[in-house]
């Protein structure tokens, strides 16, 4: 067994087994630094650009801060719960959703993450195309979208390959790339401030506002809330490594929130000053003599983003299916993203963010309700039942599905789609310009889940446990074996 194989096997072991205090590697400041490196990436530049195209600067700044900080406050307790129990994110989710519904959400997590991979890869493709254009590369690679698509596929393959190599290569690659992105960010902040100045940025009108001011504002909030809520799928993978619940809480709260959102504010300023959405285009336009270097650094940073997504997804999948070969896990968690790597998807980032808000708002509402109002005191999570898959587990619920979580999922998602159809960007109930959609659907899922658990599922589960009916199901399944003996 090679070193990389050993490291990956060790990661799968570490991912599956609850981590003790002495296994934890991140103190408070370490954790903050790690989350900034993981968080600050192409998607913040893109959401900033989108916001700057939709609303003026004086609205864009508080909207970006609100959209990337307030949702994190709403879901911040997820950092605490996984630090407390040390369990992997999706393993722990079984306590809330039931073992089989958790698997459905695991599938949603992996498939929805293909979008993040696709955006980072396509940005690599755009950067590579613009980098090669002045070097006299063939027109097939630099004109239209063919070159960008081809390079995007290469970026996905390269990012997946780095993920395949294992955690040591990954660690150094992502650290280096985070520094590259910071260099790009600092340099272009200086360029924008010296070339345009804050006065001009604040006086600029957005290039692509929606039909009314209310729709523009609500849409800009929704884009950012989508990114803010998206972290709901990524807590446990990291916070189970924290040495304290406080460190886990603050690292995610600020690292993924206000600090990483500075990249979004900068993206908004550039979009307002230039009317350009694509970061690779403004690097080429504003970079002057440093444009080529900027594009190169940005391209490498996007491969790092792909790797930083594919690796934890693959480890999670392998943890769920321990016999799955590592190479296959990496392919399953990366290859389908290629289908999304095209200009249509790239130009509809807002639609993607809305779908992400739908999914993660619903998921986050249920998980947070469970922590705050359900799994307290005697109902605190029981680790063993999280790992026992079958009727003997208290988290088996009804055939592996928690009916309360299922109904809350449907209620939250239905309310979202009634309030905002992400595909047509219309509101069925007309409420979207006033209340947006992601945050209210979070609230709907939260309330429905908490109410159903308190009045229906918990009393029933307690009665079953006290009467031994949960374990009786297990005895039933063992009778044929006993009889055969």
């Amino acid at each position, binding site marked *: 067994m090679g070193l990389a194989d050993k490291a990956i096997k060790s990661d799968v*072991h570490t991912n*599956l*087994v*609850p*981590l*003790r*205090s002495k296994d*934890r590697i991140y103190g408070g400041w370490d954790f903050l630094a790690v989350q900034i490196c993981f968080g600050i990436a192409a998607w913040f530049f893109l959401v900033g650009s989108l916001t700057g195209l939709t609303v003026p600067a*004086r*609205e864009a700044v*508080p*909207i970006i*801060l*609100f959209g990337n*900080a*307030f949702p994190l*406050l709403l879901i*911040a307790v997820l950092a*605490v719960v996984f*630090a*407390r*129990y*040390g369990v992997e994110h999706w393993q722990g989710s079984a306590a809330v959703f039931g073992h089989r519904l958790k698997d459905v959400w695991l599938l949603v997590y992996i498939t929805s993450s293909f979008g993040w991979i696709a955006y980072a890869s396509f940005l690599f493709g755009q950067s590579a195309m613009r980098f090669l254009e002045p070097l006299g590369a063939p027109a097939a690679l630099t004109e239209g979208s063919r070159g960008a698509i081809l390079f995007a596929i290469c970026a996905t393959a390269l990012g997946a390959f780095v993920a395949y190599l294992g955690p040591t290569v990954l660690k150094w690659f992502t650290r280096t790339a985070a520094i590259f992105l910071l260099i790009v960010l600092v340099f272009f902040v200086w360029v924008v401030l010296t070339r345009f100045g804050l006065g001009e940025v604040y006086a600029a009108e957005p290039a692509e506002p929606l039909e009314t001011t209310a729709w523009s*504002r609500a849409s800009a909030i929704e884009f950012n809330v989508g990114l803010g809520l998206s972290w709901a799928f990524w807590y446990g993978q990291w916070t189970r490594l924290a*040495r*304290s*619940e*406080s460190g886990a*809480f*603050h690292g995610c*709260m600020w690292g993924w929130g*206000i600090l990483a959102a500075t990249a979004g504010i900068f993206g908004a300023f550039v979009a307002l000053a230039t009317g350009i959405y694509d970061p690779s285009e403004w690097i080429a336009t504003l970079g002057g003599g440093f444009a080529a270097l900027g594009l190169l650094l940005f391209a490498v940073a996007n491969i790092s983003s792909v790797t930083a997504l594919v690796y934890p997804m693959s480890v999670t999948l392998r943890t769920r*299916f*321990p*016999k799955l070969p590592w190479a296959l896990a990496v392919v399953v968690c990366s290859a389908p993203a290629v289908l999304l790597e095209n200009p249509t998807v790239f130009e509809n980032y807002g639609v993607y963010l809305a779908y992400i808000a739908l999914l993660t708002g619903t998921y986050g509402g249920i998980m947070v309700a469970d922590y705050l109002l359900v799994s307290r*005191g*005697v*109902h*605190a*999570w*029981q*680790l*063993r*039942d999280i*790992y*026992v*898959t*079958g009727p*003997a*587990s208290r988290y088996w619920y009804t055939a592996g599905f928690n009916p309360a979580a299922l109904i809350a999922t449907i209620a939250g998602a239905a309310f979202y789609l009634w309030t905002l159809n992400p595909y047509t960007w219309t509101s069925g109930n007309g409420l979207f310009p006033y209340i947006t959609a992601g945050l209210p659907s979070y609230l709907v899922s939260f309330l429905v889940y908490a109410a159903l658990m308190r009045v229906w599922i918990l009393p029933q*589960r307690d009665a079953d*446990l*006290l*009467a*031994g009916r*949960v*374990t009786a199901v*297990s*005895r039933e399944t*063992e009778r044929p074996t006993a009889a055969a003996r």
Partner: protein
Amino acid sequence: MTTANEPREPGGGSHEVQRLDMPGLDETLRRDLDGRICEFEESHQRDVVQGGAGWVPRIRPVDYAVAIAVNAVIVIWLIVVLLGGE
């Protein structure tokens, strides 16, 4: 490790009555996992049920207060801007 055959309390530890039966686990991994769960059940489960710490020190109310205060400032800023009071 025996299989399930006893009534259980809602908040009670259950390691004496259930065997880990996750699909795909090899025996080494199952043993490690079982040991780790037993350690939590013996050392931390009672604390968690009583509102205490799990594996690591528990979060303090001041942590929540700081986050709420910062977000309150951002929310007020946003409301002021959207109402056109700037």
